């Protein structure tokens, strides 16, 4: 039935297409690497040479001299870890309640939670800032971290769908054995929705690691700045120090790439999960 020759042909066509696609995807990254190793003179001279005439690894060292990269790295990591933890556990906790605990007004409450998705972030930006300013929390990490512990509608929705998939019979059985909801949540439900938890973790990691507006608005003290704010030093009104900017950006990108390889499996299922839920 199967024509192996034909199969082979299509397989190689597939491979070529994938290679071309991959090249397109990776070219900007290579270009970044290339620029990060050039001198500014060479960049301004133009030309599309991928390999710099004089490879300048010193650009990377210069980034550390111009901005306190390590401090910013620690700051960003701290915010990121807390936000990811908050996003994953708080939202899972709330979602579990919506999925598995019967209480009065549950559906109405859920719709109210979902309706917060209708509000674009920019609308709440200034009021939120004013609230934090009145609480005396501007110029601290609280405004950046606290919201992660207060639930996000999209993540709640996503996780609720998954908790719904946990069979009621299992929960009933655990209850019969004397387990309370906390025990069931941690020991039974959470392990069963692991892919969804990773999805939330990965996407909130990406969001907070690359967040620019939040730190911009709330942090006044340069010692509290994050990497995304720090990188802006290389962009000025009329000129940009491309070599430093690219070197810095690559270093900021590095942890994301490392994480991608570690959690590759979950990244891809994560994207699929998001695709599915958005279609529904």
């Amino acid at each position, binding site marked *: 039935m199967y024509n192996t020759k034909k199969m082979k042909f299509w397989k190689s066509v597939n491979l070529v297409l994938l290679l071309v696609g991959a090249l397109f995807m990776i070219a900007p990254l290579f270009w970044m690497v290339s*620029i990060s190793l050039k001198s*500014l*003179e060479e*960049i*301004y*001279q*133009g*030309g599309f040479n991928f390999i710099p005439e004089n490879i300048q690894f010193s650009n990377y060292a210069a980034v550390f001299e*111009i901005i306190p990269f390590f401090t910013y790295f*620690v*700051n960003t990591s*701290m*915010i990121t*870890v*807390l936000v990811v*933890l908050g996003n994953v556990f708080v939202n899972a906790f709330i979602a579990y309640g919506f999925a598995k605990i019967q209480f009065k007004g549950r559906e109405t409450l859920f719709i109210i939670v979902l309706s917060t998705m209708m509000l674009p972030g920019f609308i709440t*930006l*200034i009021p939120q*800032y*004013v609230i*934090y*300013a*009145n609480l*005396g*929390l*501007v*110029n*601290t*990490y*609280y405004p950046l971290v606290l919201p992660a512990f207060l639930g996000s509608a999209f993540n709640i929705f996503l996780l609720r769908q998954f908790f719904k998939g946990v069979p009621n019979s299992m929960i009933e059985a655990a209850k019969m054995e004397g387990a309370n909801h906390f025990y069931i949540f941690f020991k039974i439900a959470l392990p069963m929705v692991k892919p969804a938890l990773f999805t939330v973790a990965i996407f909130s990691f990406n969001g907070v690691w690359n967040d*620019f507006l939040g730190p*911009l*608005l709330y942090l*006044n*003290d*340069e*010692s*509290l700045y994050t990497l995304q*704010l720090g990188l*802006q*030093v*290389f*962009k*000025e*009104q*009329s*000129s*940009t*120090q*491309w070599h430093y900017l690219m070197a810095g950006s690559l270093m900021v990108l590095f942890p994301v790439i490392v994480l991608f390889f570690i959690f590759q499996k979950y990244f891809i299922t994560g994207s699929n999960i998001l695709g599915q839920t958005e279609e529904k």
Partner: protein
Amino acid sequence: MKKIFFLVFLSTVILGACGGFTTGDSDTSSDSGGSEGAEAQDEKIVLDFWTFWGSEQRRPVIDQIITDFNESQDEIEVRHTYTPWGDIWTKNLAAIAAGDPPDVIINDIMTVKLRAEEGQIEPITEYVDEEVTGRFYDQMMDASTHEDEVYALPFNTDTQILFYNKDLFEEAGLDPEQPPETWEELDEYAGQLDVQEGDTYERIGFYPLIGAGTDVWILNALGENYLQEDGEVLVDTEPVHEAFNWILDSQEKYGQSQITSVNSQFENAQQDPFMAGDVAMMVQNANYYVQLRDFTEDLNFGVAPIPEREPGNGNTSWGGGFVAEVPMGASNPEASYEFIEYLTNYDAQLYWAEQNFDLVAHEEAGVSATESGEFTDAGREVYTQMIENMDNTLLTPQPVIAPDYAGTANPIFESIVSGNTDVESGLENAQSELEQLVEDNR
């Protein structure tokens, strides 16, 4: 698994305790009120000063000026916060709305009147005296004043001038000390400087929209802005028609695609056709000299005023700049003013001019900089040209009557340049749309 999470959590909490999660320390006190700041700092008033100067070039210069100020007296201590270019003003707006602004900020001179109208700046009229207002170029002081109240002091400015490649002039048989003075001469010289290979140009002698925009040429043609402060619109006028026809003639010569390719090289700012000798003349912000100085070794270039539309019309150029101002709600405007006054005094301005090769708002300091030992001969020549060009330089502060007039006009101008609209109907349309805009806002 649980242990790992616990460890991660614990370590972040410990890290968190180090900074970022502590509220109300002395660093934040200047935001929440001058008096608290004063207590924390041995009775000193602490001022929070926001700028977008964070580069290795500019930061040390502004930091030095701040240090000098802090050492010059013992009542005020200024602290500098770098905030990213452009976004600094978003942040400022949020801070003003929350009643928690910085004490001094560097802001755009074009929009001072708008911010004054919106109540975003503290007026400083009561502190300013004639010696201070007399320091600056008149057009800059005008832009910092709204309805007889002074809202800011000018800090720096810029101006557009003609850059030309002297070696290419010589090569083409032109006198490198005789740059073109009129549009007609520009065209003539360009013809001699062009290098044509078949249908394409290897070198562009001159195309008006390389470096400069249509707005510069409209200003140059009219000798004034096409939207006056009182709302009068001057778009559908003979000089503006002439400007567009002239631009389109030049475009026809070189061809749309060639121009697009050259301009895209400038836009991505990753290569520079003027440095590479592919463009022989262009109108640019005079600060462009710094790039020529730093990134070319022996480019032999000259500078000149923007050529005039016809003899006697004037070499009108366009400028912008920045001011130092006190955001509305700042805790101690008088102390803020004291610092602003220092920032714009002769010494600080001369220091800024010399270290950054930047055109300062202080007229006398600028003149002194033309003889600065910090500059090379070429640097002094360009700086002198910049200073002389200030006589021709107009600022176009956004008028309160139609702040976003450019947003209405520019798409129409673009459509004329890209050939989608003809000059006649395009300018007629722009004229009526702008008149309508002014009418609506009255």
